[in-house]
């Protein structure tokens, strides 16, 4: 087990099987966020913050599109059951202490997005010798960089004044989400002989 992807191929590329597992997980997570942001997006905005929903929707979609094209996909029969478990994990779960349905939905989406954007650092998996001009390598760096920007919307919302009365419930829900997302990420990486640094 290593903390990094590899051993790299002769041209500095990450092996296709590792690319496939990592990209499949990221497509699943960011794809789920894109769908959920898309569903939350009203046809016409009546508040300034909704413009951020629009940005999040398109940037999540961009990440999916980027991975679809930048990954050297390899046949992987083990992906089916793993992908099913990921998709189940992205579904909303009840949030203890939040009775209002709309608020609970918003917190669910924000906590899931926070956990994905903050807890998953794909670029940190790259060894120093990874090929700088390889599209998959570049994509992982871009996704990690973009995630820390996207994360700011979740931080603003979850730390914002509207949720101050629910701070404990929100923090507990967020820590739980982080735990779930990290566990899935650890499992994916373990399946390709990478041990995540925590």
């Amino acid at each position: 087990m290593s903390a990094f992807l590899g051993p790299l191929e002769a041209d500095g590329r990450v092996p296709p099987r590792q690319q496939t597992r990592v990209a499949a997980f990221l497509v699943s997570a960011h794809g789920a966020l894109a769908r959920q942001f898309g569903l939350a997006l009203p046809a016409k905005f009546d508040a300034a913050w909704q413009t951020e929903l629009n940005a999040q929707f398109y940037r999540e979609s961009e990440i999916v599109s980027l991975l679809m094209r930048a990954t050297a996909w390899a046949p992987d029969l083990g992906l089916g059951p793993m992908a099913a478990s990921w998709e189940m994990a992205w579904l909303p779960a009840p949030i203890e202490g939040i009775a209002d349905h709309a608020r609970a939905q918003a917190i669910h989406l924000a906590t899931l997005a926070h956990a994905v954007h903050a807890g998953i650092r794909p670029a940190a998996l790259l060894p120093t010798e990874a090929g700088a001009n390889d599209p998959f390598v570049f994509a992982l760096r871009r996704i990690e960089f973009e995630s820390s920007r996207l994360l700011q919307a979740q931080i603003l919302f979850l730390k914002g004044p509207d949720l101050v009365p629910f701070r404990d419930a929100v923090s507990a829900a967020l820590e739980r989400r982080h735990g779930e997302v990290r566990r899935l990420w650890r499992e994916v990486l373990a399946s390709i002989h990478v041990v995540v640094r925590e």
Partner: protein
Amino acid sequence: MPFLSHGSYRIRYELDGPAGAPAYVLVNGLTQYSELWGAYCDALITRGFRVATFDLLGQGVSDKPALFINQDDHIAVLHRLIGELGDGQIFLSGISFGGLIALRYAIEHGERLSGLVPMSCFAELTPQLLLIGNALRTGLILGGTGYLQDLLLPMNLSDQWLQPLLEKLDSVKRQGWLVNDVYALQNLMESFLDFKPLTPQLSSIAVPTMILNGEFDFLTPRALHETLRVEIPDSALVIIPRAYHAFTLEKAALTADLLARFAEDVMAGRWQGNKQVLIAPENPGGAFTPFPEGYDHLRAIPVSRTAT
């Protein structure tokens, strides 16, 4: 790798050196991690000390709370770590953010300490420090940990240290980039949003205190250390020649020697703070020089001190 528990969080720590020896506890600054104290562990253990290091909650291998980090948590963690060291003498030192945590610990649990060494430290957010802190936070948000490191490296280290590393800065930054997460650093920085100045409480610090300040530190300049010197009764301000904010990285051998000599002086009953202003030697083992009588140590040019 041992861990302490703080609520549901785990704190990574290391204890090195002989059990029962007087101990130094070293507290990291922002973006740092315990391994950066390696040279201090070696030097202090050689001088007969035990050394405790740890990763702050939200940094390094310690757990990183997802949304909020309260500075009270760091004090509680430090108290638990010091509890692991038994009843022997404890000397506490911290750099920058870690110096602030050390100051707060000395205010709240001073009876447990034999000596205190705040380094590149502050007790209040002056307008400059507040605005620099805000700008660094914005840099972190917009550019990630790597950009924050890009800002901090030239701000806090000398040309002499940076010059040979210019061609390999990425490798210098890499470990710090790997072990630090944007959201966790942001939480640490945002723990200052409700920061209350410590200045009114500094006079309650009764332990011998050696305040270390780099000659060229412009992130936390001399005036911020002067507040500590004026308010802490048994203190001395020691200026490290040709040093910037991060002198613990750049001048590890000298700083470790100063830490050891301070503790040895305190234990031997030789320490007298007297709110002196001293200039540290350039090299380990050298002599301290009193700041020239009659000149203002808060100025960068030789100006006679005005009577107060």
